[in-house]
C-alpha cells in the first residue's frame, strides 16, 4: 500500500474494513458509497469498503462494530474511488 495521500481530521476518507463473521447491518449512518462482500471459507469474513465523511464518522462506525460484537480484523485507508 502506498501512502500517496495525507489524511485530515475534517476530510472524507475511504477505508476497507475486514470483520470476522458474516455481518449484515445497515452502515449508512457512517459510510457512503458502500460495497459489502462476504467470504465464506474456513473463517467467514465480511469486507466493507466505504467512505467516511470525516474522522468522527469513522469512530462512530468502529463503535457500532464493537457494539455488534464483531471482531475487527483490519482497517485500511485506501485511495479514493477504489472498490
Amino acid at each position: 500500500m502506498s501512502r500517496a495521500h495525507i489524511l485530515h481530521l475534517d476530510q472524507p476518507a475511504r477505508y476497507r474494513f475486514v470483520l470476522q463473521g458474516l455481518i449484515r447491518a445497515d452502515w449508512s449512518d457512517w459510510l457512503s458509497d458502500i460495497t459489502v462482500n462476504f467470504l465464506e471459507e474456513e473463517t467467514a469474513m465480511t469486507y466493507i469498503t466505504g467512505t467516511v465523511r470525516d474522522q468522527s464518522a469513522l469512530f462512530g462506525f468502529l463503535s457500532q462494530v464493537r457494539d455488534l460484537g464483531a471482531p475487527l480484523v483490519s482497517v485500511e485507508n485506501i485511495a479514493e474511488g477504489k472498490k
Partner: protein
Amino acid sequence: MAESLPLIATRFHIPPQRDDLVIRPRLRELLERGARLPLTLVSAPPGFGKTMLAAEWAHTRPSGQVAWVSLSKEDNQPSIFWRYVLAALQHAQGGIGATALAMLAALTPPPIETILASAINDLDSLQASLWLVLDDYHLIQQPEIHAGLRFWLDNQPAHFHMVILTREDPPLGLARRRAHRQMVEIRAADLRFNLQETASFLRDAMELRLSPDQVAGLESRTEGWIVGLQMAALSLQGRDVGSFLQSFAGENRFIADYLIEEVLHAQPEAVRRFLLQTSILERMCAPLCAALVGDQQADFPAEGAVSLEYLDRANLFLVALDHQRNWYRYHHLFAELLRQKLSQYHSQAEIAGLHGRASAWFEANGEILAAIQHADLALDEARFLDLLTRYAGYFFTQGELPRLIELTQNLTTSQREQNPVLSMAVSWALLATGQSPEAWLQGIERRFGAEAEAAIKDPELPQEHRYDLLEVLVIRQQTPFDEYTLQTRPRLLAIQGELESAPKGQTCLFNKAASLQAVVAFDLGLDAELAGKADLAVQDFKKTIDLARKDQNHHLLLLAFGHLANMQIAQGRLHAARQTLEACLAEHVAGIKLPYHALAYAGLGALHYEWGDFSTADHYFDEGLPLARLWDTWEALVPLTLGNARLQRRMGDPEAAYHTLDGLNNPPRPELLLPVEVLKMLWQAQEGNLKAALSWLEQHAEVAAAQPTPLSERMLLDFARFLSACQRAGDAAALLQRILDSASAGGRWQIVIEGKIVLAKALVGEGQVEEARALLFEALELAAPEGYSMSFIEEGESIHNLLASVRDLAKPDPALSAYADRLLVGFVQGAAPVGFSPSRAPLPDLLSERELEVLNLVAEGLANAEIAERLYISVSTVKTHTGNIYNKLGVTNRTQALARANQLGLLPRRTAPPE
C-alpha cells in the same frame, strides 16, 4: 425524590460565556437552522470548540428554554442517564418529567418507553420551544440508551429540539434523518478556524501581534484545530515568534503531544506542578485544589483561589461550571494531555496519593460519590470499602441503587465476606432492581459461619449474629410470591417473633429490626391473601400500615393500603375499604401519583358505582384511567375500564361503553383481557344477540368448568351471568355454586352476596322460586349493613319481583325492611335513590374480624386447642375471644352462639344445590 436528587447541579449549567470569543456568524447561522429541526448533531474530534459553540448559542436563548447536560462516563447506564436528562429538563422547566422521574425511581420501573412517553407527554403541554443539549454524548455506549434516544427523537413534539455534541457519530438513525432533512450537522470541517478566524483569535483572544505570514503558518500547521492554535499561542507568549514557528513547522511529533510540552514549558514551575496535579480532578474548586497541591509552592500564591483565577486569566483551558465561578474543569482534551504527562513524570504511588487527598476532601465536604470514586482510583481498597459501608444508606435515600451495584460488582469473594454490612446493602439493591442477591447472602453466611436458618432454629446462636442473620432470612423471603407454600407462614411468624423480641433501636445487618418488621408484616399479609384468608390478611396489612408509617416507608405504606382495601372489598366491607382507599390517595411521595393511586381510583370508582353514586364514580374513573395508562399498570387498567364501561352503559350510552372496552389493547399477557371479553359477551347476550354469544361460548366452554380462585371469582361471576343470559341456567347454577363455596370459605362476602343474587335469578328462570326467595333474602341480610345496591338493581325485573316478594320476611327488622324499601325504589329509578348510602355511617361491626375468624372455626367444629393452633395464638386468647363472642351475641354456649350467628348471617351458609 425529585428534590433529593444527588445529581451534581453543575452538570446542568450551560458553561458560562467567555468574553473573548471569536464571533463566527456562519456557525451561528447553521445552529439557528438546526435549532428549528428535531436534531442538531455537532460531531468532531476533541479540541474543535463544540461545547464553546453550543454554549455561546445557548446564552442567546431566554433562560429556561435550554436544558443542558454535561455527560460523564458514569452516566453510561440507562437509569442514570435518563435521570440526568429528566432532571435537566426539570431544571429548565419545572414540572417537566416529574412523573417520569418517579417511574425511574420505582421499585419495579415500567418499561423505558413508558417512562419516556410520560416525559414527552409533559413536553406536549409546553407553550414555548425547548432545547436539550447533550454534551459529550460519545461517553454513552449502551445500546439501550441509544434505543431510548431514538424513541425520544421519533416521538418528541415539534417544539422540542435536541442538540447532541459528540466525538463520534452515534447510532441514532442518522442516515434516515439526514435524508429526510430532519437534522443539521456541524462537523470538523465547519468548526475548524479559517484564516480570518485564526487571525482574529490570535489577535483578540490571545493578544498576540503576528504578521499575516506568521498567522497563515500557524493556521496551516494546526489545520484550524482550535485547541492546537490555543496551545501554540500559549507557547508563544514571551518567546521569539519566528524561531518557535520554525521549530513547530519542522516538528514531526504528534502535534498535541508537542504542544502540551511547549505549553507546560512556558509556565513557571509551580504552575506546571499545579496543572499536572489537579489534572486528576473532573471538577475543581479553590479549596479542593489547595488540599491537593498543598503548600509546596513558594514562588506561587499559596491560595488555590488565586491559582484558578490565574489559570483562567492565562487562558489555560479552564471551563467555569457555575456562574459564581466556584467550580471549574479543564477542557477535556487538555486534561487528557495533562494526565498523560502526569503519568510520565510521576510514579503510580504519587498519583494514587493525589486521589487519596481528593477522596478525603470530598468526604469532608459531603460529596460521597466523588469520595468513593477517588478512593477507588487511589487504589486504597480499605478506604474504598470503608466508605461504601459507612455511606451505603446514602445510595438508598438518593435512589442511586444502580450505582451502588456497579461500584461493588467487581468485589472479590473474600472482600464480600469481610464486609457483611455492605454485602447486605448490595443484596437489597440487587433485589430492588430485580436481580438475585443469593451469592452475596451466602457470603454473609460464610462470614458468620452459620446458615441463616440458625437465626430461628438455633437457640445457641450468639445474639448479635442472630439479628444479622435474621436480615438474610427476611431478604430471602422476598422471593416471587408464587413460591409461597404452606411452610411460608410459620417461617414468617418465627422471623417476626425474633424481630419483635429485639431491643428497641436494634440494627440487624443493614436495616433496623423495626424496618424489617414492617416488611415481614406485609409478607404475612400477602401469604394470607394468597391463601384466600381475607380476615387474616386484613390484620396483617393493618399492622404493616402501622409499622410502615412509623418507619416512614412510603412505598410499603401505599402498597399495604392497596392490599388492605382489596381484602376489605373482598370481605364486603365497603365502607372500611372506602376509608382505606381515601387514606391511600392522601398519601403522596413528593406529590407524584403512583400506580398505587390508580388502583385506589379503580376501587373507589367501583364502590361508588355500587352505591349508585354515579357522578363520584365517574370522577374516580376519570382520574384513574390516565394514570393507569401512564404507568402501564394493567392491574388497575382492567378494573377501571370495566367499571367505566359499566357506568357508561348504565347512563344510557352503550356505544361509548363498547368503545371503552374495545380501547383496551395489547395486554402484556392475553388472558388479562378475558374479563373484558366476558363482559362484552354478557351484554351481547342481554341485548338478544344470542348467535354471537353462543358461538363465543362454544370457543370458551372450558371457562364454565373452571375452578374459582380468589383472583378469577369476579370474572367467573360475570361468566355465570353470561351463561344465564344464554339460557344455560343449569351450567350457570353449577358454576355459581362453586363460586359461592370458594368465596364463602375465604370470607369474600362481596362475591357471596353477588353470587347469591345471580343464583337466585337463575333459579327463578328454572322455576325454583322458593329456593330463589331464600337465597335472595340471605343476600339482602348480608348486603344491608354496607348498603349494596347496584348488585341487586342491575339484575333487573326478575330480581325486582323476587325482592318485592321477600319484602315481608324483613318486617321484624326495621333497618332491614327500610333497606329493602329503598332498594325497591332504586329498581324503579334504575339507580339507587339519592343519599342512599355513602353518606350514611356503616352499621357498627358486631364482631371484630378476629372474633369472626374464631367463630368460623367454631362452626367448623374445632376445639379451642385446635383453633389456637390454626390461628397461631394461645388457648387462653381463644377463650377470651369466645367469651367476647358469647357476650356480644347474648348467648352462653357454643351451640347457641352458632344458632344466633346463623340468624344474623354472620356465618357463610351452604346454599341448597339446585335440583
